[in-house]
């Protein structure tokens, strides 16, 4: 059964009853929430994802109003993992964004049976590109555009490296778009399904892009890494790839990883094997069409 098989009323009931177990790649999350925005966001962006009927859940999360007097003074929401709340309460209209950030937090903080790099990852023709990127570098915009142009999304935020075979494992969760990139993607891809924006978050305006049906349907297919590309949006630049040293790529991805040091020597070996398998590039761009052309040539 897929989440989209439920009506909004049915989904709200299951969320209220703590009876919704969502499978996203290798993880199953039980989600509880009385918040309408959470139900609407899930239905809009996770409709293709399977519901899990097994007994085991990786994560138990809840999004709802905090307790106490404050909830009556200013509508707020909070996120709980089991009974632990890792974040401060946020304005109520950030509910769905908070769920997304919370799900990222769950994976990044607990899935240590993978090496987890802070990078997007997509696949085309059996080969995957890993896109590390500093905030504002244009990583999410490029990730969204590639997915909407036929690349299979594995993740826009967390690259999972399987410790047994070094292959990349998919999550295929929605792509987090921020500020100007929301309009850029909506204009370039009018059919893209984007959720309700959350305004004035600590990242500015945030809206999530629905993953492609192909990305969700094939989420169980691991991908072989082929390229590490460091994107950089720069106004007026011509889209082009240039060589990036593997040593530097390893140092960068290691320093931005979620659990590299925690894994010790295994983290180094997995990250080094990733670099062994890839060619590494810098990628500067200003125009999405040009960027997509360069990536199409790369994957050809």
């Amino acid at each position, binding site marked *: 059964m897929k989440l989209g098989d439920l009506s909004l009323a049915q989904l709200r009931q299951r969320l209220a009853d703590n009876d919704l177990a969502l499978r996203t790649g290798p993880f199953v999350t039980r989600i509880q929430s009385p918040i309408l925005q959470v139900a609407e966001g899930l239905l809009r962006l996770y409709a293709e994802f399977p519901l899990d009927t097994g007994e085991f859940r990786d994560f138990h999360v809840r999004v709802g109003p905090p307790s106490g007097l404050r909830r009556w003074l200013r509508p707020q929401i909070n996120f709980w993992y089991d009974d632990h709340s890792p974040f401060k309460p946020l304005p109520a209209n950030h509910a769905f964004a908070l769920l997304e950030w919370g799900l990222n937090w769950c994976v990044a903080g607990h899935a240590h049976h993978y090496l987890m790099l802070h990078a997007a990852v997509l696949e085309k023709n059996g080969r995957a590109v890993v896109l590390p990127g500093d905030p504002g570098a244009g990583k999410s915009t490029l990730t969204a555009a590639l997915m909407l142009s036929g690349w299979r999304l594995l993740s826009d935020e967390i690259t999972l490296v399987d410790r047994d075979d070094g292959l990349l494992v998919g999550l295929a969760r929605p792509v987090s778009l921020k500020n100007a990139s929301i309009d850029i993607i909506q204009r370039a891809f009018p059919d893209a399904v984007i959720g309700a924006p959350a305004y004035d978050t600590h990242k500015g305006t945030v809206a999530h892009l629905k993953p492609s049906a192909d990305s969700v349907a094939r989420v169980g297919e691991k991908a072989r890494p082929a390229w590490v590309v460091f994107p950089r949006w720069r106004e007026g630049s011509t889209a082009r790839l240039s060589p990036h*040293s*593997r*040593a*530097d790529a*390893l*140092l960068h991805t*290691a*320093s931005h990883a979620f659990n*590299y*040091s*925690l894994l*010790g*020597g295994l983290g*180094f*070996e997995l990250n*080094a094997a990733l*670099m*062994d398998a890839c060619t590494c590039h810098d990628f500067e761009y200003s125009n999405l069409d040009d960027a997509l052309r360069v990536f199409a040539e790369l994957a050809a």
Partner: protein
Amino acid sequence: MTSDPARLWRIPPEADLRHREWDGEHVFFHGAAGDTHRFSDAASLILLRLMEAPTDESSLASLLSEAAETEPAEAVAALANILTELANLEYAEPVA
């Protein structure tokens, strides 16, 4: 640290060093510290030798001198700087 040709150097036993080289660039992982560093060709040469076996300063200086095609005295001075750096980062230590 003053140089001593007979002094033996080694990798700290707990360091569990790992190494990769791509296109002439060397990266080392220090297992005990969980740190990753990129070292110069010269420092990498010394580390790789020490990963094989503890080695005295005289042999390390000769190795450096041959690889860099420099005078022995110049190599000794360079080696002192390299060993100081490696010792500070706990990648190498004199054998007591």
